[in-house]
């Protein structure tokens, strides 16, 4: 995970140097006067040697968490990203909650009534949704729920926690729907496995109510799905960036795409690094959650293979 951060940082540093032609020229346009170009070179630090550039880039990044002044906004890139962060975090949080709220009951029902209509549905729907671009699903939701039914707002955010939740409903549902098929499929398979495990017979023989038995089954089935979810965190974050654009949410995503349009190098660098950092942090949270479910994966990355022995199908 740390390695990813390092790779991203190096990659992000190289972006500016890899762009064909002169980045200053790209920012300022063809009509820029030579002294303007020179000034921009100086601001971006491009007039120094590449080694010096790299050390000063890493130095400021580590010391201040910044990648320099945004060209377009003329303020610190870090401050810009941080100011947009809350909206994106809300969106990610709401989507994550929705994924759980949708996946668990669906997978449980599909597994308990194997071959039933929910099971069929769970198998067919991914075939259809696989080719649906998230932004398009978002637009269709707006059309259905905001324009036609007028249940949810078309976009933007509203004040207050309830206003925020209200504004997040459609965008987070959009993101969650893209994630659920994988999770449901993995959970369903695992629940079926666990239902055949010896300990379920013990619980039944001990006259425990069915809902208590299901709780045990779910807990044992959860870890692989959670680990899969952890691997897909980057999709969650990536989806957030795009879906923000659809709903006009002023988050990191809309900042990214406007930064790309105006060729704001330092800002793009900051967003890339903070997104990577976000993925790493969320992955750590997922891992901690995994440890809460299964003591055997506590405090270690290499727990993936170990869940196999849990349940021990006879």
């Amino acid at each position, binding site marked *: 995970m740390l390695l990813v951060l390092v790779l991203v940082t190096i990659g992000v540093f190289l972006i500016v140097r890899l762009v064909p032609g002169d980045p200053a020229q790209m920012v300022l346009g063809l009509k820029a006067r030579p002294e303007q170009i020179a000034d921009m070179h100086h601001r971006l630090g491009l007039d120094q040697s590449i080694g010096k550039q790299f050390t000063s880039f890493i130095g400021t990044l580590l010391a201040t968490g910044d990648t320099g002044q945004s060209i377009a906004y003329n303020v610190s890139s870090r401050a810009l990203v941080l100011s947009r962060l809350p909206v994106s975090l809300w969106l990610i949080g709401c989507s994550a909650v929705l994924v759980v709220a949708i996946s668990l009951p669906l997978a449980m029902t599909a597994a308990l009534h194997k071959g039933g209509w929910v099971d069929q549905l769970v198998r067919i729907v991914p075939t259809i949704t696989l080719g649906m671009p998230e932004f398009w699903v978002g637009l269709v939701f707006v059309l259905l729920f905001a324009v036609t039914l007028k249940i949810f707002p078309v976009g933007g955010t509203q004040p207050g926690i309830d206003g925020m939740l209200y504004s997040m409903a459609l965008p987070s549902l959009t993101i969650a729907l893209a994630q659920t098929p994988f999770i449901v499929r993995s959970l369903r398979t695992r629940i079926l496995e666990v239902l*055949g*495990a*010896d*300990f379920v*017979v*013990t*619980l*039944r*023989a*001990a*006259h*425990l*109510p069915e809902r*208590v038995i299901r709780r*045990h089954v779910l*807990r*044992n089935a959860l870890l692989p799905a959670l680990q899969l979810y952890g691997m897909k965190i980057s999709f969650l974050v990536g989806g957030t960036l795009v879906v923000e654009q659809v709903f006009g949410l002023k988050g990191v995503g809309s900042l990214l795409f406007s930064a790309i349009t105006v060729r704001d190098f330092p800002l793009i660098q900051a967003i890339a690094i903070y997104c990577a950092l976000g993925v790493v942090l969320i992955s750590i949270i997922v891992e901690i959650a995994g440890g809460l*479910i*299964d*003591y*055997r994966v506590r405090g270690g990355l290499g727990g993936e293979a170990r869940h196999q*022995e*849990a*349940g*021990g199908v*006879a």
Partner: protein
Amino acid sequence: MNADASIISNQEHPGAAAGSHADSCHEPIIRVNDLRITTAMGNRPLIDGISFDVQPGETVGLVGESGSGKSLTLRAIMGLLPEGVVLADSESISISEHKRLAMIFQDPVSSLDPLTGVARQVAEVMRYNQHLPRREAQAQAADLLISLGLPASLRAADRYPGQLSGGQCQRVGIAIALATKPDILLCDEPTTALDVTVQLQILDLLADLRERLGLTMLFVTHNLGVAAHLCDRLIVMQHGRIVEAGATEDVLNNPQQEYTRRLVSAILPIPGEQDR
């Protein structure tokens, strides 16, 4: 069917054959009458019309090689047949009214939820069977486990099944069974998966519990030595049928069938048993 007739009549007066415990003419606590189990798809019989009774306080051993249908019979009595097999007639098994069944299993480790602490598992069973408050159940569960020979540290910190030995897990399994306050304990090869040295400890524990709690036991095993250690009466099964039944000593000393003779000759001594 006809071949079983003599056995059935034999069991209807078990006092004559089995001696010790079942010397009265009580109502049987378990009555199995012409039990038939088939696969759900075809009609291949897995259990082919067996009948026997178990009297209160008795310990009856169901013995036979693997595939003889003894475990399936036990599962049918518990009401927990595995997927894919069906009972031909639900009336063929009757348990006396208000008598509660509990079961312990062959693989003690995998028959416990690997992700829940063992004291919690026992406490949960107590809560739902004895309607105890959570705190009370937790305390009693720890007491029960410790009285069954688990370390006293369990009272302070729960352990997961993966952190216990096979023998300890089987003690937890027994605790779960006892937490349901059973009258009848069904044992499905509870010592087979254990080290030979631990086997005897578990058998002694079961014998002790039987005396103290007045349990009726139905004990499934392929090991006649284990059965002899614990059972008043033996029922020998082969290919889903009963081939021989009678008091343990009679069956062991004077087997009537070739199949039984083979089982008897395969008995291995239980280590440590000869010391006593």
